[in-house]
């Protein structure tokens, strides 16, 4: 077992345990924190696979922006008290069973697949920003532009949803 393997197993364990805590934490703030920890583990995996750019972008985007928004919302709503009524035990059980069976079915299907023994190398420079940049602006330039359209739509949408309709309320009164 090389150092690489050890790091892999540690990161994996970290990720899975934190992910489980995301689900079972009563307090949403704890869920957020565990999710961030999971993201860090995943970023660690990226670094292990020599995808540094994605590793750091993962941190910036998910941990730095997305989860902050989550935290914001949770804090503003003051959901820290464990007010969330729990679903019945049956639902928990059903969720566990269904997710577990999904996992089992898929993984047992893959046991037969030939591809599964191909190693993932940490060598190669495809994770480097230069290569990614070239690919992005060369082959993937259309999706790149489209993502701007997507953002525009999301921005308009967030504005429409978020703004209070002052004029309308006045007129109805």
């Amino acid at each position: 077992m090389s150092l690489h393997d050890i790091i892999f197993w540690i990161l994996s364990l970290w990720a899975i345990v934190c992910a489980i805590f995301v689900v079972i934490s009563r307090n949403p703030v704890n869920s957020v924190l565990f999710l961030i920890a999971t993201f860090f583990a995943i970023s660690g995996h990226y670094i292990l696979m020599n995808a540094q750019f994605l590793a750091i972008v993962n941190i910036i985007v998910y941990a730095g922006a997305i989860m902050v928004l989550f935290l914001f919302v949770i804090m503003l709503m003051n959901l820290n008290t464990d007010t969330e009524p729990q679903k019945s035990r049956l639902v928990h059980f059903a969720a566990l069973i269904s997710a577990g069976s999904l996992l089992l079915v898929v993984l047992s299907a893959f046991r037969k697949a030939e591809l599964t023994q191909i190693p993932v190398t940490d060598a190669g420079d495809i994770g480097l920003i230069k290569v990614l940049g070239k690919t992005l602006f060369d082959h993937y330039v259309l999706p790149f532009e489209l993502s701007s359209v997507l953002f525009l739509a999301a921005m308009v949408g967030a504005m429409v949803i978020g703004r209070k309709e002052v004029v309308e309320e006045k007129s109805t009164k």
Partner: protein
Amino acid sequence: MSIDTFLILEKIILVVIIIAASMGVAAYSTWAERKVAAVMQDRIGPLRAGPFGLLQPLADGGKLFFKEEIVPDNSTKWLFMLAPAMFIFTSLMTSAIIPWGPDFVINGSEGARTVALQVADINIGILYVFGVVSIGVYGIMLGGWASNNKFSLLSAIRAASQAISYELALGLSLIALLMLTGTLSLRTIVEQQHGFWDGNYFTWNFFKQPLGFIIFLVCSFAELNRAPFDMPESESELNMGYHLEYSSMKLGMFLFAEYINMFISSAVLATLFFGGYNFPWMDQVQAAVPSGIFSLICVGVLMAKVVGFILFFMFVRWTLPRFRFDQLLNLGWTKLIPLALFNMLVTGAVILFFFNKK
């Protein structure tokens, strides 16, 4: 995997030095802040502890250490403890990728060995900075939230929204710079700014990207939560900010981390726009002195720039009144971001039409 023990040793020493230096600079920043504030207000500033009050930071630190620890009853305990640690941890992390000086050579018994005055030269250096800065928010937010105090929470949210908002403009202003440099590695960026005058043009990025620099500077003010953007601490509305409930050394860590942040961002500013450790006629100097000495000179130059920036931060703090929160966000979203985009466009156009190598 072969591990170069000497390399690890070297890096550990470097890390220790950098952290110690950061701490030291941060500590003396508090002293400097008082001094600067004093002289600008026609006062003298700390004087009693040691000559010129130079032992004042130590006294402050000692005082904080011996103060009573108070953990509010209704707080979320482990987060309350975690927050200051996180905050100071993230502020120290950034220093890892700053090139403090040029390589120098040690002639040992096994032959010459080049030592890099940088903990890690990763090829996405600037992104690393952004990554660390973006998670720095958590320290504040968790601290504010875990205190279970409305004022803390509000100020934490202010701090976080301010940080997120200005990160955008910060990033955008840098993109124009990165277009010019063509790399994200800070070391390469510094090396590109070698010397001061190339014979044809100034090498420092400040001269190529003045607008970018200004935007970056303004944004770093906001990121550091320093006046005139020190919303989270606006005493008149929110008492003391997100660390309202903190006491003793946990408070000290928050305060300390802010100064460390200032130090690091000054270093980043100097590295990106003011040539890092480069200085005019450095080639001549290099020829004249041994490599070790030259490196020290370079480190000194960088430190001088950093100190200059720190002084500038303080200078501004004691000059400008605080913005209102809506003005702050307005400035960020409707002024700085468009300006940064404009800067980006102009830079792109210039590169496209004048320096197109194809």
